């Protein structure tokens, strides 16, 4: 039975250790903190993410729009410049007759006027339909040349006007050619060809007012640079990456160049030419503003996370502490329940044993009684005294047994809560009966200082007995062999009676005395549950009484119990 009981207890203790282990709370704390942090930080994170994305989009469009406008404006400048020059050449071609134009003197004069009105013209020449240079005004000696083998000649024959790609002339200056075909009503036709230097192209690009790091250039459909690029090479160099699809409307694309830099590229075709205008802004420059914004955002985000984390941690800590506290209280309640269950089962066992013993005890009693009766009836019974002593001894033993079974039954009865009117002196005496043998064995003196006319009070017999037993047990444990325990009862006032149990044992430190009614507080290490005194205190409080302790280390302890004379409300 004992081993089974202790086995169960071990299991329960293990379970309790498991439940109350600090590791479990650490784990729980970690779990809750991370979960709560996740739940709170995740929306913040996604908010920041969305903000980042939106901001990037806005920023991109904010960067792209001016770039697009800039390219659009410059494209118009180019178109206007070329259209003016083309119109001028076209006007001259149609304003004069072939004969007038074929005179070098005339052409020279016209060229001088044209140069005055329009900047950029380098030379002017008349070519007949057979491709022969008829007349020429300009710095080069191009007279009598034939152009039939040249591509531009066929193009102008076919299209009417033609603007060439940039090429380097004899003086190693970049030029473009504008050629216009004119046909009279009579069907005679000629071609007027003018050369422009491209300095004016550079001027238009410079007028775009590009930021440092940005770039703009003209290029033809074959990807050959028509103006110098800050980054991608000189005139007539090849653009190191393919131009994205372009049309006549200025539009912006994000891409990576040959050096793998992220860039925004705005481009548009120039009307009536093979040219495309491109402007480039590197992305890091584009997003320099975003980085400052993002720094702010990052600061808010990080401090937000820190604040959330701290709040979550503190909240969780408070929660876990409370949980731990309530778990401890629950465990305390379970322990107390276990304790009383244990007492109750011991009580039932004791009652059963006492009952079983009663009958044979009654027989022994009667048999011994009969033996004495028989002896008493015969005066001349041999060894009468000797036998009489034996019988007395048997009857005394029966009496002792009767006392033991009586106490055992009394112990069992404690489990039934019942308020009855009791004389505390006799309850004290009865309780002492449990411990008297130990006291005698250890030579502990029990002094009784009991007031004889102690008023009876309504209280629970079993519970008050447990209170006395717990305190007496502690007193007995505290005193050395040969020590002294003094029991005092007195009538305090019209409301209370007092019982004090004083020992001259080891006493307690102030700290121990302060904590002795706390659950689980024990000085007996493995031997005690640390509940005895807290249960005792609980019972006395429930019975409407008070329990006080006075103790001095190495001098002794006095426990004083005050119990009400009248039954109070809410008694257990």
């Amino acid at each position, binding site marked *: 039975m004992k081993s089974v009981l202790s086995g169960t207890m071990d299991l329960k203790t293990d379970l309790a250790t498991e439940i109350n282990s600090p590791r479990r709370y650490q784990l729980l704390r970690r779990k809750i903190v991370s979960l709560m942090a996740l739940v709170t930080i995740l929306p913040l994170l996604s908010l920041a993410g969305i903000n980042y994305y939106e901001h990037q989009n806005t920023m991109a469009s904010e960067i792209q729009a001016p770039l697009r406008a800039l390219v659009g404006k410059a494209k118009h400048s180019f178109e206007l410049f070329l259209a003016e020059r083309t119109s001028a050449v076209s006007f001259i071609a149609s304003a004069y007759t072939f004969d007038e134009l074929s005179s070098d003197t005339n052409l020279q004069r016209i060229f001088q006027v044209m140069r005055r009105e329009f900047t950029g013209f380098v030379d002017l020449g008349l070519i007949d339909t057979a491709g022969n240079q008829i007349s020429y005004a300009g710095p080069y000696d191009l007279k009598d040349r034939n152009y039939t083998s040249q591509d531009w000649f066929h193009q102008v024959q076919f299209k009417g006007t033609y603007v060439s790609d940039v090429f380097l002339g004899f003086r190693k200056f970049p030029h473009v050619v504008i050629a216009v075909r004119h046909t009279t009503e009579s069907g005679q036709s000629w071609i007027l060809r003018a050369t422009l230097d491209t300095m004016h192209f550079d001027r238009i690009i410079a007028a775009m007012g590009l930021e440092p790091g940005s770039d703009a250039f003209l290029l033809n459909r074959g990807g050959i640079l028509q103006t110098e690029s800050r980054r991608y090479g000189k005139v007539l160099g090849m653009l190191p990456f393919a131009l994205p699809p372009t049309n006549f409307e200025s539009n912006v694309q994000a891409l990576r160049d040959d050096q793998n830099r992220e860039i925004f590229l705005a481009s548009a075709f120039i009307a009536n030419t093979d040219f495309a205008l491109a402007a480039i802004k590197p992305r890091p420059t584009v997003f320099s503003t975003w980085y400052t914004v993002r720094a702010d955002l990052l600061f808010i985000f990080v401090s937000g996370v820190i604040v959330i984390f701290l709040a979550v941690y503190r909240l969780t800590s408070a929660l876990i502490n409370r949980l731990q506290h309530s778990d401890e209280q629950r465990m305390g309640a379970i322990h107390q329940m276990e304790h009383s269950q244990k007492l109750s089962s011991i009580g039932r066992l004791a009652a059963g044993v006492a009952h079983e013993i009663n009958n044979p005890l009654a027989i022994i009693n*009667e*048999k011994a009684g009969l033996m004495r009766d028989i002896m008493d009836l015969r005066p001349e019974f041999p060894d009468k005294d000797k036998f009489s002593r034996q019988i007395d001894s048997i009857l005394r033993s029966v009496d002792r047994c009767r006392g033991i079974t009586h106490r055992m*039954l009394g112990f069992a009865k404690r489990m039934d809560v019942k308020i009855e009117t009791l004389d505390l002196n006799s309850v004290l005496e009865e309780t002492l009966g449990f411990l008297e043998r130990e006291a005698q064995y250890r030579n502990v003196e029990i002094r009784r200082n009991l007031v004889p006319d102690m008023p009876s009070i309504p209280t629970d017999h079993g519970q008050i007995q447990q209170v006395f037993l717990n305190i007496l047990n502690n007193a007995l444990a505290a005193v050395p062999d040969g020590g002294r325990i003094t029991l005092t009862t007195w009538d305090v006032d019209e409301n209370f009676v007092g019982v004090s149990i004083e020992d001259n044992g080891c006493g307690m430190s102030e700290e121990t005395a302060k904590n002795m009614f706390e659950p689980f507080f024990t000085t007996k290490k493995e031997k005690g549950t640390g509940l005895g005194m807290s249960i005792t205190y609980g019972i006395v409080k429930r019975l409407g009484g008070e329990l006080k302790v006075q103790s001095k280390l190495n001098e002794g302890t006095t426990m004083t119990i005050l119990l009400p004379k009248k039954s109070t409300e809410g008694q257990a």
Partner: protein
Amino acid sequence: MNTSAWNILLVDDEVEFVSTLAERLELRGINARVAYDGESALKAVAENEPQVMVLDVMMPGIKGLDVLQRVREERPEVRVILLTGQGKTRDGIEGMRYGAFAYMMKPLDLEELIRTLREAMSAHEGTPDA
């Protein structure tokens, strides 16, 4: 009071106990018969008409309290002293409600039993219970 005229019935399933008790009473001049169970107790009551019956509560077969009730119905003039084990005060109190004269606890104090028997006899000689 002349104890020789007393007619006592002792009922208990513990044969050793009840027979020894009867012998001790006889030694003191008290006429005591014994019965070892409820059934024979009821028969003995009908046949021998005892004045007082000492009845153990805990018995196999017919329980002591049932025997008490039957005796109170059939022979209300018979005084019944109940024997209970220690801590079985409740049985004793219940027995008193059924009309037992007294209840005593085992192991018995013979002098106390004789005192109680004497009280029961004087009650018996007075007006019988209805």
